[in-house]
């Protein structure tokens, strides 16, 4: 039986697949037709996951850096080394960087190790601020930090709105579900400055100027309120502050919205009407690199709440996670702002509960994310990292100054070489673990092949480290950890490996009331009233905008693509996706910047002509790529760091990767 059932580990869709194992190697992949979400489909990445697993870049032995060179050591020696070093560093001077691709069990244990053994709250993922914002907005608004709707019912929807991002590239199979729903009769609209494939597949594509989606969403809400196309009964039964929100909308002037966004009034009115008339409506937005900013997310939440589409079967607001276990990592508290189960770090009761549960004193001092820790020259002395790519390499100088850098990883990469100690860990096919996809589906991926001799799962290494530091941890399997998680995290309380082995995932909340998981948020069960989130109407920023535009008339945005996925350190280890990536690099060896046909004509720019992209603090030379997909006044650079965007984006990337609504004001200059 060489085909083993599993879960794809690339994006947050969590498609079901079959891996073909020969000897002790994964030699092929095939989609799993019975999977409730992917229903027998995979994207280009998923179809090549076995290529990634062929790589020879495996880390097979613990390594310690000795005068600049790595020396192979035993696991005990490496653990001893770390234990000795870390004893001289105070907990607050240590930061942890988790991996959104690691399992729930590994992420939970990393958080427990950081908080209870090292006593630091500097615990985060790196570039997925969008997920944190999304969780905060949804928690405030409806108490549920993830997808409120269900993808299972999407094909019966009447109305689907996709806001921002490029879903057919980021989460192709969720995009495919949307496409199928559209073909089954749903009205599909996309709001995005770029003409993405999703936009091409939509009946309506609204293209607001970069950074103005917020205004458009506010405008839509105003129209809904004005035209009385709202369900007052729903609002009075299930929401707490609808009247003050509706009153606040009076500040939103439609003419101003039209002026700011460049979208005609008629289109705004028509889209609002479609939403109001629909019975079953969903909105999608990506979290992660191409996310929205929090006020735009809040505006989208408010719009859907006003339309009565939150907390009802067959409707919902659906954030889509870009990385396989991004949601699970947050569920289990790999974040400076959330404890496991989304308890706020400001909640004293939650800390006490955690102390009782872990039987250890914890430090409440507020932690920061890894970017903040590394940007501050003094903040930390030691850094622990799980399986990370090149994206934090921009802090290379600071990382080199640290007293201790510990890396847990399965593969060598340019980041690993910065470490003082490297622990090899198993890859995701070499052990058991659960992963939580965008739709809150917790899925168990079971061990398929044996790891190389001596390579241990992360939980085993962390357990040994904790024991070396005087904590009596006793975990003998990933399952042990899941049973601990289920006692601590209410959403996960009904989850067991026994259940998960015989099902294709369960959607949290999975608890006593919902032993088979929960499809969608229902207002009747929410246990509280929903809240409109004050988003305001910051008209004053427009003047500032116009000032900048004189010198930097273009708005530069950054986005993702199929093959440049995840800073390439993942795709580079494949064959076919790597070829596709190289095919484009051959055309634009210096990288490219996309410009609209209109602007290219106006500036007299030819395809592949070199230009300087100048921002306030940096500039870069890139080739021009003329594109029909972007608006006049906008520039676009796909997000792949090492080869294409050397100095320039490294400096700007912290801001740029926050969200798609962020843009960098730049100007273009011809070279020579």
């Amino acid at each position, binding site marked *: 039986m060489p085909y083993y059932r599993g879960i794809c580990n690339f994006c947050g869709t969590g498609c079901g697949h079959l891996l073909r194992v020969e000897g002790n190697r994964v030699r092929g992949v095939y*989609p799993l037709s019975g999977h409730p979400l992917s229903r027998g*489909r995979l994207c280009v990445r998923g179809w090549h996951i076995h290529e990634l697993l062929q790589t020879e870049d495996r880390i097979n032995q613990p390594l310690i850096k000795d005068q600049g060179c790595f020396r192979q050591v035993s696991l005990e020696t490496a653990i001893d080394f770390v234990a000795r070093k870390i004893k001289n560093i105070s907990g607050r001077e240590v930061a942890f960087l988790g991996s959104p691709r690691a399992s729930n069990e590994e992420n939970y244990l990393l958080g427990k190790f950081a908080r209870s053994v090292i006593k630091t709250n500097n615990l985060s993922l790196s570039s997925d601020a969008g997920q944190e914002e999304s969780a905060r907005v949804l928690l405030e608004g409806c108490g549920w930090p993830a997808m409120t709707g269900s993808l299972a019912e999407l094909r019966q929807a009447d109305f689907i709105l996709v806001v921002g991002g490029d879903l057919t590239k980021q989460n192709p199979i969720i995009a495919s579900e949307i496409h199928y729903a559209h073909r089954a009769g749903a009205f599909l609209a996309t709001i995005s400055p770029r003409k993405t494939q999703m936009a091409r597949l939509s009946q309506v594509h609204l293209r607001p100027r970069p950074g103005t989606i917020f205004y458009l969403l506010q405008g839509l809400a105003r129209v809904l309120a004005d035209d009385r196309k709202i369900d007052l009964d729903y609002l009075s039964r299930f929401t707490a502050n609808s009247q003050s929100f509706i009153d606040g909308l009076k500040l939103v002037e439609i003419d101003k919205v039209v002026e700011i966004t460049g979208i005609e009034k008629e289109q705004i009115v028509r889209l609002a009407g479609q939403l109001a008339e629909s019975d079953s409506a969903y909105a999608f937005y990506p979290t992660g690199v191409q996310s929205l900013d929090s006020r735009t997310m809040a505006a989208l939440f408010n719009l859907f709440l006003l339309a009565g589409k939150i907390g009802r079967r067959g409707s919902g607001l659906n954030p889509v996670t870009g990385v396989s276990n991004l949601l699970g990592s947050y569920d289990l508290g790999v974040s400076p702002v959330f404890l496991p189960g989304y308890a706020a770090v400001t909640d004293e009761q939650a800390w006490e509960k955690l102390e009782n549960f872990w039987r250890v004193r914890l430090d409440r001092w507020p932690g920061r994310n890894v970017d903040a820790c590394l940007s501050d020259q003094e903040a930390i002395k030691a850094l622990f990292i799980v399986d990370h790519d090149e994206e934090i390499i921009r802090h290379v100088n600071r990382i080199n100054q640290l007293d201790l850098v510990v890396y847990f990883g399965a593969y060598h990469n340019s980041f690993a070489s910065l470490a003082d100690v490297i622990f090899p860990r198993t890859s995701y096919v070499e052990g058991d673990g659960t992963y939580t996809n965008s739709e809150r589906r917790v899925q168990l991926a079971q061990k398929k092949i044996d790891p190389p001799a001596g390579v241990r799962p992360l939980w085993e290494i962390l357990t040994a480290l904790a024991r070396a530091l005087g904590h009596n941890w006793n975990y003998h399997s990933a399952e042990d950890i899941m049973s601990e998680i289920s006692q601590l995290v209410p959403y996960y309380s009904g989850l067991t490996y026994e259940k998960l082995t015989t099902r294709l995932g369960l959607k949290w909340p999975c608890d006593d009331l919902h032993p088979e998981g929960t499809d969608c948020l229902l207002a009747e069960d929410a246990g509280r009233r929903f809240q409109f989130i004050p988003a305001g109407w910051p008209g004053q920023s427009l003047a500032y905008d116009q000032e900048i535009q004189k010198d930097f008339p273009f708005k530069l945005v950054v986005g993702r693509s199929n093959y440049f996925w995840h800073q390439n350190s993942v795709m580079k280890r494949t064959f*076919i996706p790597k070829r596709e990536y190289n095919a484009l690099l*051959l*055309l634009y060896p210096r990288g490219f910047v996309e410009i609209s046909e209109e602007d290219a004509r106006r500036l007299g720019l030819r395809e592949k002509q070199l230009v300087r992209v100048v921002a306030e603090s940096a500039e870069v030379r890139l080739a021009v790529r003329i594109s029909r997909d972007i608006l006049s006044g906008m520039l676009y650079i796909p997000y792949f760091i090492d080869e294409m965007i050397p100095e320039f984006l490294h400096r700007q990337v912290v801001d740029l990767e926050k969200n798609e609504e962020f843009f960098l004001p730049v100007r273009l200059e011809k070279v020579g």
Partner: protein
Amino acid sequence: MYWLTSEQLELLIKKLGEEYKIFGPRHDRVSGEVIFDHLTDLSELDLQAAIPYNPPRFILFPHLEEILKYRYEPETKQARIEQLNLLEPKALIGLRSCDLTGLLCLDRFFLGQEFVDEFYLAHRKKLFIISNTCLRPFPQCFCVCTDSGPAAKEGFDLDLTLAGRGYLVEAGSKKGQALIDEFKLPEAGPEASVLKKKIIDDSVSSFDRWALENKAWISRATNRLTTGFIKPEVWEYIGNQCFECGACSFVCPTCSCFNIEEANQESGETNRLRTWDSCSFEGYTKMAGDNNPRKPVEDRRNKRFFCKLSYSQSKKYLRPGCVGCGRCARVCPGDIGLPNVVTYIRREITGEAGE
């Protein structure tokens, strides 16, 4: 024609298992998916299972295969090359006729032309094939439109047709006949061929009832594709919906495109790998010096359906390149599997309104 009871069939497969690695349809317990897989436990074989989601081509043409290894030795200034040949005898049990037809298309591509592919040949050489007539079609099937089912006509060693409690068996090769003789199977008598014909006829006439997912008017589409009179807008409409995942090629029983990669090993050796490839990828047709004759996605889609359905291709394979299994329709994120494409082409011919 011979008669075989279910108990005898079990013994026969067990006997084959002594010499051959057994492949056949089994169910994944949790998802219910039918997988054509290497069976380490023969009790998992289910000949009544629906058409497997994966075609058996991975057995002869793996998703990723090491085909040779080489190593340069600096001391002697010589390169050592080692060809990797897997001459493992394999028995494919319960092949549906569409999949057997697909295999015959692969044979024509890898073996029947100017060059013989040694690696494919190595897999193909010691193969025992038992085909299985479909008593009724499955929802995605349209093999009656592509002349590849519901019963196998050629290419098998043994062909089974379930009739009541046992099977009608036909031998298609000396190997198959030898097995029949060894098991001393009783002749089924003159009425057996009448019975088999009735079973097949019933199956064909039940397509209207069961096979409701797809219909494909292959011959009209072939005509239209061959003459090249399909408007570019039709291809654009199709291309816009393509997610460029390559799945249609990867699940197609007749797709034979591959890529060669040289993978350097830490040991100093280099492995030459053959992997599946797909015409839906931009890099597939990319040439040196920046030229790509099929850069836009709609041109690549156009190429795929030309390859499957045009007359010139059919001449090469002596049949259409599509075997009517319906897999590309189920696996496609863009809902542009071959049956839908044929529908769009047909709509253009008949002038029916599009969507």
